[in-house]
């Protein structure tokens, strides 16, 4: 369970003797357990509620639909988890999704329609490259120019959507790409391809954080940037890479969103997804101050938020009520975070 969960090395604390408690992550008491793993409990409750009260919920088609809707949120949240792990935040992920979508449209459109007539594979590649480049730019502004991440990426949030609008000429572009149908509807072992992609990326992110030197550097910077500099870690290079990864992941999400919509919509693709992603990281037990990355928690957080929205829509809860419910959950998650700082 905790295989994909990593915290920064902490000073050794007195160990509880019980191996079981350690396995359950209970070494720091119930409050800490709730903080770190409460989202699993919340998800179980939500699934149980749906199983009993949502018509048609426990059917293969409904689960498959959820798995088709989830990947963009999960993938963006993975990048967000890494960035938050460094003590930063990436508000530009939604704008990067829009840029990737716009680049994809420009490449894949026929020359007669103002595009480059590239194959879908090439178009997708350049869309992701565009995301990586924008992310690397963010990282450079944060790491080299030392602009606060919230400010640097806020700038890109605004500018990025402008760039996407310029690339598409301001309007929604409909795309008739046969491959998109495969992306939307294709399944392996009953699970949509896009969910496999999200799962593979999640495992890769977990390995990156837990098993690689890069992952330890990332956590070290999030834990204490100054100490990392003094310890001789390549702080700038690491930060630029983290933001580039976040941008690249957002671009993958943008490509999937475009395939789902069968259109590039620069005004709305990925709009406000940064907030969903931050929420996923926070309810997944991640610390906004950095120094900690919980990949599994983040994925479960993303699933929880998406399922919550689906549940509210399924039960025809009025928009106003739905927002209040979502706000309460976010406040609760932040409150749990806060209690750590005061303890």
């Amino acid at each position, binding site marked *: 369970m905790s295989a994909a969960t990593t915290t920064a*090395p902490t000073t050794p604390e007195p160990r509880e003797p019980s191996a079981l408690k350690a396995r359950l992550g209970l070494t720091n008491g119930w409050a800490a357990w709730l903080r770190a793993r409460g989202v699993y409990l919340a998800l179980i409750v939500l699934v149980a509620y749906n199983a009993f009260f949502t018509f048609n919920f426990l059917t293969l088609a409904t689960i498959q639909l959820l798995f*088709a809707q989830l990947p963009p949120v999960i993938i963006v949240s993975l990048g967000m988890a890494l960035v938050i792990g460094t003590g930063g935040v990436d508000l530009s992920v939604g704008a990067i999704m829009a840029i990737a979508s716009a680049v994809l449209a420009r490449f894949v459109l026929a020359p007669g329609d103002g595009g480059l007539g590239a194959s879908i594979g090439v178009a997708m590649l350049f869309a992701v490259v565009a995301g990586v480049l924008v992310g690397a730019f963010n990282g450079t502004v944060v790491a080299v120019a030392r602009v606060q991440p919230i400010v640097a990426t806020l700038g890109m949030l605004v500018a990025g959507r402008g760039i996407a609008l310029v690339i598409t000429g301001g309007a929604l572009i409909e795309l008739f790409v046969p491959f998109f149908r495969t992306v939307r509807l294709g399944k392996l072992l009953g699970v949509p391809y896009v969910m496999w992609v999200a799962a593979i990326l999640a495992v890769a992110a977990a390995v990156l954080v837990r098993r690689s030197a890069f992952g330890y550097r990332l956590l070290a910077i999030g834990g204490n940037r100054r100490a990392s500099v003094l310890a001789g870690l390549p702080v700038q290079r690491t930060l630029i890479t983290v933001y580039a990864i976040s941008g690249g992941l957002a671009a993958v999400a943008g490509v999937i969103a475009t395939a789902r*919509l069968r*259109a590039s919509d620069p*005004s709305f693709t990925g709009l406000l997804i940064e907030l969903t992603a931050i929420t996923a990281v926070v309810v997944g037990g991640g610390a906004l*101050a*950095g120094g*900690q990355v919980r990949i599994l928690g983040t994925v479960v957080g993303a699933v929880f938020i998406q399922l919550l929205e689906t549940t509210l829509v399924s039960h*025809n809860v009025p928009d106003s009520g739905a927002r209040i419910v979502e706000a309460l959950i976010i406040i609760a998650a932040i409150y749990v975070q806060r209690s750590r*700082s005061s303890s």
Partner: protein
Amino acid sequence: MVHFRKSSLSAAALSASALLLMAACSTGQTAGSGAPASSAAAEPSASVSQSLGADQNGVPAAITAAGGTEKLTTAVPEGVAAEYGPICKGSDLGIGKIDFTTDTIGWAQSEKEANPFRIASTKSQVDAAKAKGWKLLTTNAQSNVQQENSDIKGMIDKGAKAIIFSPINSTGLGDAISYAKEKKVAMIPVDRNITGVKGCETVGPQLGSDFVEQGRRAADAMIKATGGNAKLAILLGASGVNVTDDRTAGFLDQLKAKNATGIEVVFQQTADFTREKGKSVTETLLRAHPDVNAIYAENDEMGLGALAALDDAGKAGTDSVHIVSIDGTKGAVQAIVEGNFDAVIESNPAYGPSAQAALDAYVNGDGAPAVTITTDNQYDLSNAQQALDSGAAY
């Protein structure tokens, strides 16, 4: 071993994040930039069901609020559904005549031209001015009301003798309006009327669509398409926006008025006027309410999103699920031709010729009515192909 973990969270970072996360809950208010004829709408404040229901002397309250006092019985020009007096003249506000061969006028667009409605609306103004050889300045406020104020004042400072404008919202343009009044510049609001700002008195003649009527016509089209029997889902526009309320109220009122009890509304959920939300909400809807066989989408984009979801589920086509939407964009009209939509009620963005004619009559001629309601077309299989060929669908 270095102690990596921070002992406490930065208070500033926490509160900033909290604010951001709170904003996550306001997803419904994001249609400002792309929703056709939507966002911070500026319909008269009177609630819709009352406004068109409770007429005073044959004048709906909404029209009264916009300065109309009586319905004119004279023949209306083409493209106009109704005109409401009094007839106002520029000279009443001390506005002098305009020589359009030498003087400049201005067009202030409210939202960025990223959706078909806004693109067509600006194009209509520019084309109409070009056809007549008028000199036209154009601005775009990008959904920012302060920007629109300064856009309008800026054009007046550059010498514009009249401003045709699409107001972002009802209350925020007082600054520009009083500046125009002071400078004796004619003001013509189009596509939405402004609450508490009366045609003839504070501004010149107003021209707009009737969003409630659009909802009613959508209901008529839905009754016709389904034969009066359906399990119906409504994809609402952005919450807290009058266009949404008007199109909902008109639709539900008309179902009641026509006694269409066979049409059961089983689902109403906002999809924010966007294609993406239209798709995801419809996907969820199809799982929770598989018996739904009719969808009323309050704009074309949500309708097209619903169609994408239906297509993925193998339920596209009006023999499986009926769709009626409002706007009249090319994509939706094309969907009629392809047998996926039943009908589309137009929300006509082409105010160029009518607004410029009203301006001419207002300053140079016999005056223009305080409030003009323009005609919206309606498309179904009988005229959809023709609308695409002629370019009437925008």
